[in-house]
């Protein structure tokens, strides 16, 4: 067998092995309930902001403490703590993707991805403005 063929085979084997490993290692989207079972492990949770509960960011007290309540896909509401500032337009978000882990009864996240009604907010403002006429 030619050397290049051997190398090709080795590379393909490595790729397949790598793929299998990577797939096994993929994280999934969880709910708070399943996250609690994996306390300490970093995971993603999708949900929406619970607008009825309080959203706290008071830089005078602590510039790195932002907390709110999120309702996950199963409907469970849990307190979320984020080590950072309050993201822009937070209350307008329709969906949140949090990356973090459960610590006791709180979910500590280090990344918040917000989905807003429209990415560059176009129609939204246009047609809501029309109601003013």
């Amino acid at each position: 067998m030619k050397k290049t063929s051997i190398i090709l085979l080795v590379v393909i084997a490595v790729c397949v092995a790598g793929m299998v490993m990577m797939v096994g290692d993929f994280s999934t989207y969880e709910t708070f309930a399943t996250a609690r079972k994996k306390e300490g492990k970093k995971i993603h949770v999708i949900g929406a902001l619970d607008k009825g509960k309080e959203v706290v960011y008071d830089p005078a007290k602590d510039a790195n403490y932002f907390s709110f309540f999120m309702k996950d896909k199963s409907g469970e509401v849990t307190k979320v703590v984020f080590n950072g500032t309050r993201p822009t337009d937070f209350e307008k978000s329709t969906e949140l993707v949090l990356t973090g882990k459960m610590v006791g009864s709180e979910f500590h996240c280090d990344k918040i991805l917000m989905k807003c009604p429209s990415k560059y907010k176009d129609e939204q403002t246009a047609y809501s403005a029309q109601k003013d006429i």
Partner: protein
Amino acid sequence: MENIKYVGEHLLPGQLGHFFTILAFVASLVATVSYFSSVQQQDPLKKASWLKMARWAFFVQTASVFAVFAFLYYIISNHLFEYKYAWQHSSRDLEVKYLLSCFWEGQEGSTLLWSVWHSVLGCILIYTSKKWEGPVLTVISFAQACLAAMLLGIYVFDYKLGSTPFILMRQDAPDSPVFMNPNYLQFKQFVDGNGLNELLKNYWMVIHPPVLFLGFASVIVPFAYAIGGLWTRKYAEWVKPALPWALFAAMMLGTGIMMGAAWAYESLTFGGYWAWDPVENASLVPWLTLVAGVHTLLAYRSSGHALRSTFFFFIISFVFILYSTFLTKSGVLGQTSVHSFTDMGMSGQLLVLLGLFSIPSFWLLIKRNKEIPKIVKEESTYSREFWLFVGALVLLVSGLQITFITSIPVWNKLLDFFGLKKLFNLEDFAPPTEPVFYYNQIQIWLAIIVATLTAAVQYLKYKDTPKGTVMKKLGWPTLIAVGITVLIAWAGRIYYTNYGAGFLVAIYLMLFASIYAIVANFGYIFVVLKGKTKAAGASVAHIGFGLTLLGILISSSKMEVLSIDSMGVLNGYFTKESGQNSRENVMLPKGLPVQMGPYFVTYRGDSVDAADKSKTLFIMDYEKKARLEDEPAERFTLYPDAFLNIKGQEGITPNPDSKHYLTRDIFTYITAVPRKDVVTDSTPYQEHVIAQGDTIYFSKGFMVLNNLKTSPEQKNYHPEPGDIAVGAEIYVHTKSNGDFNLRPVYFIRDSSFQSNIPDSITPLSLAVRFTKILPNENKVQIEVKETQAPMDYVVMKALVFPFINVLWIGILVMIVGFVMSIRQRIRR
């Protein structure tokens, strides 16, 4: 709807624009068919007439594309807000230099830009590619027809083909009651447009997209040559003219990607120059495979090996370009990237586009695989071509790994589509929780291999290298590189243990590999090429590549956050998490110096930007000194800015400011400001009854009542005849902010009216008033208030990126190397 006569609309530019889009589509179809026939036709007379027609068709499509571009620009620059594109992406107050940015903010504009570059490249090829014109232009014309189809916006039986940038607001939402009024354009929401996204108001955003899309567009040229070679069975001849184009495409694509990185770095929207965001990855992968293709092509030219892999690499590069278009424009990335476009209902069309090019190309490659000439004799392990091939494979693996992970949302869709998800009861896969480390830990090993090969392979000869000479020539560069590596690792204190010892080993290895690439290629220029720069293009590009890797490595392993908040140190700072979850935001009350690393930073106040009224500048004074009372060794002011609560947003859109040094950059940006609408200060005053010389403690220190004075002097107290006034002299000491004096005044006016004038220290949010005199006890009542929310403050982050210039210099050197190689290859 139809019978309303609208007032003030400018319909002509849109109609013309739409007409020319259709013309471009039709003309490029004609060009495709004519070019195709000119290749298939054997009779020289018929061939020539097909060719003539094809050229005319291509020129017509080029002119049409330019016309479409011009009409769209006319609409944007004249603020014709009856058009959705202008309304969505521009506004009247937009500075002229950003008008082009709004052009490419939208999907249609960026597609148009791509199409413009295809046209330009096509015209150049008509005049330069000689006998390759037929096959190459067939491919480009067909691509043009596909791109034009994405801009058509017409219905073909119920399916909307493409999305036109010339759609009117009222056509976009015909049911909206506002459009029942013929004078709708006078309503306030149509007087001005929605405007450009604030983050895109950056000069890099004016030039990065055109360069990137020129890179995107030029990848089609080596692809078209490869297809032409397969199609006309001229398997060997296409290689020579394709090489300079492949180099050009790699150069432009690389430059475009790194301009985007420069934008991301300056605006910090991705938290640095590279964040492994899906949109970044999508454009990096074709670059990797294209570079791999360039190297196998070189191997083929000198040894006859690796022709099939060259075909493969050029085809897959273009397929990856289309795939990246699919990823960024179809909205499939949704939950994984905030930077991609949202779905416009074109994902089906984009998939068809991907299939139209990839399926026939790979089918052709497989069908003709046997016919492609190859050398039966095996290549030697001591030959350059063997290692070029290995390097190309490593680049491919790198690209595949990036694609595999970036495509996670696509896998989810596919599993769902085939019903496998239900079958195995699978949940949706999520992207890595720590993407940067996830990619780095794999890619760093591939980068080590590639960089080492970059250093060593040039010293090998094609076909075979006499044993012993390699080691002799490589010995010195290797030793020097080891020496420099040890020196940098030791002097630069490269000790990055955030992710364990294994990753640190990888970092040391990569440090060596990148330095090795630089040193060995320098050595190659001076020792082997004897300083002849004519043939040194490759070595120069490799030095640039090594510098780029070195810059990436140093700047990311030594990146530092200055603004570590030590508040609440006891609760939480020493927990397990604190190492990763550092508290990176610091609150700065106005006028109060706060220590950050070697600096004391003071927030002085804000002001409104002269050019853009919606922008607020924050004045941040930096003083380099060890202690507050020292004379600063260095002093500078940064002006980070932010858009506050624009367009109904709640919150801020910040833009950093930075101090550039040769060896590091200091970035500052505002992450939060007080909300002006909630100024509730309900904190009560605390009463203290004290005698002269007594002390009152408060959260930041203590204060002493030094003296009581009749006829006090204070700027807010204006004495009147008959006043009985007493002033308290209070000395205030704080732990970290220095000493102050307070002079609250108590007075009785008209012998009955008791009042007082408080005094305050704004930066401490401390207010003190003098409310009572208790003559019997020889005491006074002092009331102290510490406001919870200070009057004015900012929350900021400060970052230091060291040696980032190594990265930028590396990129520039790489570009120079590419230019030298292109010149050298064209001359030959």
